[in-house]
Every structure is written in structure tokens, then in C-alpha cells.
């Protein structure tokens, strides 16, 4: 049943996309289309390096084929650590194989920007991306929201971040390890740089018997299976699990979910810079955003429908965090080990 619902969703999404593409094709001279796509894509091969989830990559590539049928998109997809290691090796070997980099969190992408590996340019659609979610070399495509997930059968679930340090949930809270997941590091950056939390927030969590697991998804699994009562996880995976019938619920933190943006940029030595820019810009268009939203992520543009957002959203001051990874992680590790 779940599957058919999912298939139905996908069909609807595809229909919407097809109609959108048809409209775009019919109204070739409409301002929206000409503004959204710089020049024509031309034809050729595009190498996409990404850590976005496979279903999202598939949806975007399918939607892009409608707009640029003569471009063949070759995807290298891997978790952030492996993707970054491959790029680091290729940089030293002399030639990055990718044209476009579509990452999961701004911090790892910033690492390449600061080595001048990313092209500085202005996508036509950049104006539609909120200022806090873009730089000169990369732009947000979607938001990952860190929320609280808890067991469905709880009488008095936590409602805000500080509740997780409440003795009522002693030994029952799980958090993802910022040393592994970029999104978890974004959260660490947010708490560490906010006066009302600071590193003391993590100390209180540790004092309350909080468990650190490796991946964001392990928090969700642990809560669903009853190993933990609550924890921090990403809204999309929690929504997916709930839709399938997992016994968990989302508590959208009263003071705001912590939003991490997933950026796209173009490599400075891209072999096909025109196609690369065309594709990167496509991710920011309404069509690209709709494809992203069809897989359950919150689009970066507010004029594209996405999943239901349960309340406030806050985000770290990203430029402030860009060069502080080592320092923050080191302090974090004195608290949670590893």
C-alpha cells in the first residue's frame, strides 16, 4: 500500500513535471523560461559529483532530460566523506573528473571554494535563493531540517532542544556524530555559536546520558525500535518512516528546526562549463526545485511547493563556521569521545 502511494506520488510528480516542460516548450519566449536558462544547453556529457540521495538525483536528472534532451548526465554519487576523498585525490592527481558539485552541506563545499576549485559566477536564478543560503561560488538547492524525533507512544514528549537535557529523558536521547555527518556538524556549529546554548548544551546532553550514534538515520532507527525515546534527526527521513508506519513522531522544536542547505557549484576547471552552469542553474529553477521537492525535501525557493514545514526554522551563520571545523570538533570530542 505504501508502495502504491509512493508510486502514485511519483506519477503525480512526473505529470506535473511533464506539463511544466510542455508549457515551457510551448511558451519558448515566455520571460520565465528565457530568464531561467542561460543560453541553450547544447549537447554533450555532464559529469555530476553529488552526495544527494539517489532518488533525488534520479528525479532531477529525469527532469533535466526534459529541458536538455541532448545532454547526457553521468552521475558519481557517494556519501560525503567518500565524495570528498575522491575529489581530494583527483585534485592532487591533476584533473577533477566532475563538472558540477552538488553537496549535502555547505561546509565541505566551502573547503573546495577556499581552494579556488569552484567557479565564481552568478546563476540567473540566484536571486530566488535566500541570501543566507548562497555565496559567490555555491547556492542552496534544498533544506535539510534537523528536528526532534520521539516514540509515538510517549505521554510527555520533548518539545524543544533544551528539553533533551531534561532528566525525564535521561539515558534515552540519541544524537548523530558531527564528526561523521555534515548535517550534524551544522547543528554543532549552530549550538556552539548561539549564546543561549554554547558547548554547555552538549555537556548537559552528555551529563544526561545521551548516546552518540554515527549517522543521522541511526537515531531514527534507534527511536523507532525503542532503543532510545527521542533524538535529533532529519525531517525528511522521519516523514518517510512515519508514512510507512513507523511508531515515531516529529516534534518540531519550538525555537526552530536547524536548517542546513545543500549547495550546488560548478568546478573551475569543468570540461563543459556551459553545460555545467546550465545544469547548476536548472537546480534553482522552478522545474528543478519541483523535482527536488517531489522526493520529500524542502525546496530552497518559497514559490515551489514542498513538504509541510512544522514551525520555525533557524540556520547557523555559515561563513562564521567555515574555518572553525577543527576547533569545534575538538571541543566536542572532549565531551563525547571518539
Amino acid at each position, binding site marked *: 500500500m*505504501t*508502495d502504491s502511494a509512493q508510486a502514485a506520488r511519483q506519477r503525480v510528480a512526473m505529470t506535473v513535471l511533464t506539463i511544466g516542460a510542455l508549457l515551457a516548450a510551448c511558451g519558448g519566449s515566455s520571460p520565465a523560461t528565457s530568464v531561467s536558462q542561460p543560453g541553450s544547453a547544447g549537447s554533450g556529457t555532464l559529469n555530476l559529483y553529488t552526495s544527494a*540521495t*539517489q532518488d533525488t538525483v534520479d528525479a532531477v536528472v529525469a527532469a533535466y532530460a526534459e529541458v536538455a534532451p541532448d545532454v547526457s548526465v*553521468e552521475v*558519481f*554519487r*557517494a*556519501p*560525503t*566523506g*567518500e565524495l*570528498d*576523498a*575522491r*575529489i*581530494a*585525490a*583527483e585534485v*592532487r*592527481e591533476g*584533473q577533477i*573528473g566532475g563538472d558540477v558539485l552538488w553537496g549535502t552541506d555547505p561546509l*565541505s*563545499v*566551502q*573547503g573546495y571554494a577556499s*581552494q579556488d576549485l569552484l567557479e565564481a559566477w552568478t546563476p540567473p536564478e540566484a536571486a530566488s535563493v535566500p541570501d543566507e543560503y548562497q555565496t559567490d561560488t555555491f547556492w542552496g538547492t534544498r533544506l535539510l531540517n534537523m528536528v526532534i524525533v520521539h516514540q509515538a507512544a510517549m505521554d510527555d514528549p520533548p518539545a524543544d532542544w533544551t528539553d533533551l537535557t531534561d532528566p525525564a529523558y535521561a539515558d534515552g536521547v*540519541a544524537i548523530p*556524530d558531527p*564528526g*561523521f*555527518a555534515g548535517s550534524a556538524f551544522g547543528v554543532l556549529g549552530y549550538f556552539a555559536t548561539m549564546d543561549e546554548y554554547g558547548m554547555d548544551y552538549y555537556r548537559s546532553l552528555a551529563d544526561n546520558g545521551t*548516546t552518540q*550514534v*554515527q*549517522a*543521522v*538515520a*541511526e537515531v*531514527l*532507527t534507534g527511536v*523507532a*525500535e*525503542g*532503543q532510545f525515546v527521542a533524538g535529533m534527526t532529519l525531517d*525528511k*527521513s522521519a516523514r*518517510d*518512516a512515519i508514512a*510507512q*508506519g*513507523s*511508531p*515515531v513522531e516529529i516534534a518540531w522544536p519550538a525555537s526552530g528546526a536547524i536548517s542546513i542547505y545543500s549547495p550546488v557549484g560548478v568546478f573551475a576547471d569543468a570540461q563543459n562549463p556551459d553545460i555545467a552552469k546550465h545544469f547548476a542553474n536548472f537546480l534553482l529553477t522552478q522545474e528543478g526545485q519541483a523535482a527536488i521537492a517531489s522526493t520529500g525535501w524542502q525546496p530552497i525557493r518559497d514559490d515551489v511547493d514542498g513538504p509541510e514545514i512544522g514551525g520555525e526554522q533557524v540556520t547557523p551563520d555559515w561563513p562564521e563556521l567555515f574555518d572553525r*571545523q*577543527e576547533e569545534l570538533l575538538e571541543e566536542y*570530542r572532549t565531551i563525547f*569521545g*571518539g
Partner: protein
Amino acid sequence: MDDRIGRIGRARGFVLLAVSASFAILVAWPLVRLAIEAVDGGLAPFLAALAPEGLEAIGNSLWTAAAVTLLALLGGLLLAFLTEHRVVPGRPLLLLAILLPLLVPDFVSALGWTRAFGPAGLLDRLAGLELPGLYGPIGIVLVLGSGAIPLAYLLIVAGMRARAEPDLERAARMSGADGLTALRTVSLPLLWPVIAAAGGLVFATTMNTFGTPAILGRPAGFATMTTRIYGDLAFSSSEAAFQRVLGLALLLVAVVVVIVALTDRLGPRNAVRGAISGPRGQTRAVGRLPLALAWGFVAVTVLVPLAALLLTALTRAVGLPPLPEHLTLANFGRAIDSRTLPALVNSLMLAGAAAFVCVVLGAAAAIAPGRRWRRRWSGFVALGFAIPGSVLAIGVLLAFGRPLRDTLLIILVAYVAKLWALAERPIAGALDRIPAIASYAARVHGADGLAALRTVLLPILAPTLAAAGLLVFIFALHEVTISILLYGPRSATLAVAIINLQQLGDPTVTTALAVLLTLLVVLCAIPLIALRRSWSTGLIG
């Protein structure tokens, strides 16, 4: 004098040259490239590895790997004596059950243990029981140790079959030695080269395994060298972190190579060699208690975790109790998509090619240098095995990225560099046990070196060669850390497809894929095991 076995004149010189060239290209050059990049960052990467947290991680890695090795050797020996020296009812089934953990990727077995014995696991649901300390070093040692038992078992059995000792053992018993004395003075010393080879492999595998320490160690704040390396890898867009990865990894290689070299020197200085005996007479039936213990052990460490995984794979959504109304096959459907089949073909081709090349190179590296140089070559070849897969993949990219990027060949290069030792060590171990007399006899009867190799050495080695090939095939089939870094649009492997499909971590789909992968490996392994049995019975049994 012993060298006469391997001395096959000019052919031997040629083989040695080929082995040296393969080593230089496949193992040495990627390592040198890594070292160049690491040194590029000055001494900082190495100093970082020696900071207090780094030392703690090194210590943790060392003692857990030592404990795992002991556990695996003990278990492997006990099971090997049981199945090889006694008549065991239901032997094929027991063999398959013993070897099953080998067929399961290690991150999957860690997952299986948490599903079975962890909080809210199968046992917890059924009986309110959970294994204390599962999250932390105890759990890591138990999961990795029980997972490594089949590796030790397979190598020990292959070694035993390369030369049967029941004759000598019986002689000892007839001369008045009790069972324990015969074991201590005859069977174990005879087996020593094989035990050392198995121990070295288990130790090296454990030192650079990542999945289990990550799943079981993180929640307890227990860091090993590999989890630290991976932690830095996750931030490798920062140059300092990337260089730290390389520094730590090279240090890990050094530690593993030194330890393996040291353990190889332990034990009897000259392995006892005797005559080849006649067919093994398995006449004594196994006692009821040892058999029950063996099956109990297999049930607890293999069958229950796998059953727990299977239940998870069949459950509609994570966290639902496995009641009939929540069961579904849909996860298997979601696990298979248009990418799975080409990826499967790639995986089978890669694993087959890697098994073939590794066995050929492994045999060449074990036979060609002769007895005196064999151990030194074992050490060289172990370099590739000692390095964590992700870092080896970085080295291969640095060394061959430009000409071979995105091809199956670059993955094969890395597989062979990594798994060469997996084939070489068992073959070298078995060779050490073969009495020189065998080939002298052939030579006396007029056979030249090559003919002696073909007619004497290869038939004796056949079971070991088959076991070595099987090991490489299985390891290559579920290898993921190398291929995820090296694959291209047309060269994704099955494990890569799995990792990519499940990255947001829906465990129901992940476990479905893991179950499918396990089934596949079992299907591939059964004919190989059967083949191995017919070879061994046909040739030396």
C-alpha cells in the same frame, strides 16, 4: 637445499621478475604516491596521529585486533579439529553454517547482532534479554571475532588437507601420548605455519575494518584507528584533514606490517615437516557434547543475527514488531532496481577476475622466491592488505586515476593490490608444510622442476588454491570501501548500488539488500565449496 622445490631454472627467474613488477605497480606505487602526498603536509599528519587521542585509538585498535585474532584462532582450530578429525553427522550443513558469516559483509553482521542481542532486539522482545556491553569494545571483539572464525577455520582446514596428520597423531597416541600431549607436541606444531598465516590475516583484516567499530564503538565513544581515519575522511575537503587521513593510514600500515612480521617469527623456528600420509581415516564419531557446542555456537553467532536481519528485512517499517500484519516482501522489491542487474554483473566479473589474478599472483609470490625468501615476500604483499580500503583507493586514484578513471580495470587493480595477500598467505602457509621430500622424489624419478611443480606441488596445493580463490572472490564480492571511491557511470558494483540506495538509512531496505547479497554469495559459494571438496577428495583424500 629446500630451495630445490621452487627452483625451476629460468622459468623461476621470469616468474620472480613478473611478481616483482606486479608488486611494484600494484602495491608499491600507490603507497609511494600516498606517502608523497602525506609528506607534502610536513610532519603534521604524523604528529597528529601521535597526539593522545591518536595513541588511544592506536591502543584500542591493537588490543581489540589481538583479542579478535585469539578468539578467531581458538574457534577456528576447535571447529577444524572437530570437522576434520571426527565423523560428524550433518557435516555439509555444519560446514555451510560455519562459513556463513564469511559470506556476510561485516557491517551487516554488526547490524545483525544489534538487531538480535541489542536493546529492543529480537532476544529483548522475546525474552527480555540483551547482551551487556554490545556497544563498546566487548561487542566489537565478539562480532569481529565470531565473524573471523570462518576465515581462520577455512585456512586451517585448507592447511590440514594439504597434509594430513592423523598418521603422525596416531603414532603419537600409540606411543603412549594422551590426546592433549599429541595435540601439543604433534598436531599444533605441524599446523603452526598455517596458524600464523591465518592469525596474520585475521589481525590485518581486523585492524583495517571500519563498519563494526563504527556501528558498535561510536555509541560508547570508543575510537579505533579506522574510525578516526574515516572521521577525517568525512572532512577531506579540508587539506589538513586529508593529509591527516594519509598520515594515520600509513601509520596503520606500519603497525600492521610490524605486528604481522613479529607474529610470523613466533612459534617453532622451523615448522615441523613430515611425510605425506595416506588417506585420512575419520573413524571416530564426534562426541555429543562437542557437536552440541558447535551447533550452539553457530546458532548464537550466525543464525540468530541472520534471522533477526531477515525479520527486519521483512518488516514494513522500522520499529514495527515483526507480527504477520506488518510483514511484507516489498522491501526486496525496493532493493532491486534497474541499476542492480548491471551492478551485479560488474561485481561477479570483478570478483572472478580478482580471484583468478590473486591466486596466480599469490601462488607465484609464494612459490617463486623459494623457502628462504617466502616470508619476506609475505611481508611485502601484506602491505596492500594492511591499508584501509578507502585509503588504498585514494592511492590507486593518485597512481592511475588519469588513464584508468571510471573503468572496471582501476577497481580490479585496487582489488588485487588489496586481496593479493589473502591468496598468498594460505598458499605460503600450506607450502611451508609440504615436505621437501615430495619433490625430491619426483626429481629423482626424472621429473624436471616444472614437471615436479605440475605433478607434485599443484595437486597437493589444489585445495588451498581453491580456498584462496574462494576467499578472494567472496571478499571482492562484498567489497565496498574501495569501489565506492573508484566506480564510474558504467562500473558500479553491487555493494555500491546498495550503499547508494540506502544512504538515508532505511534499515528495512538495507537489510533486504544485505539478505539478497548474502543469498547471492551463498549461491556462488556452494558450487565452489563442492568443487573444492571434489578436488581435495580426488587428489589427496
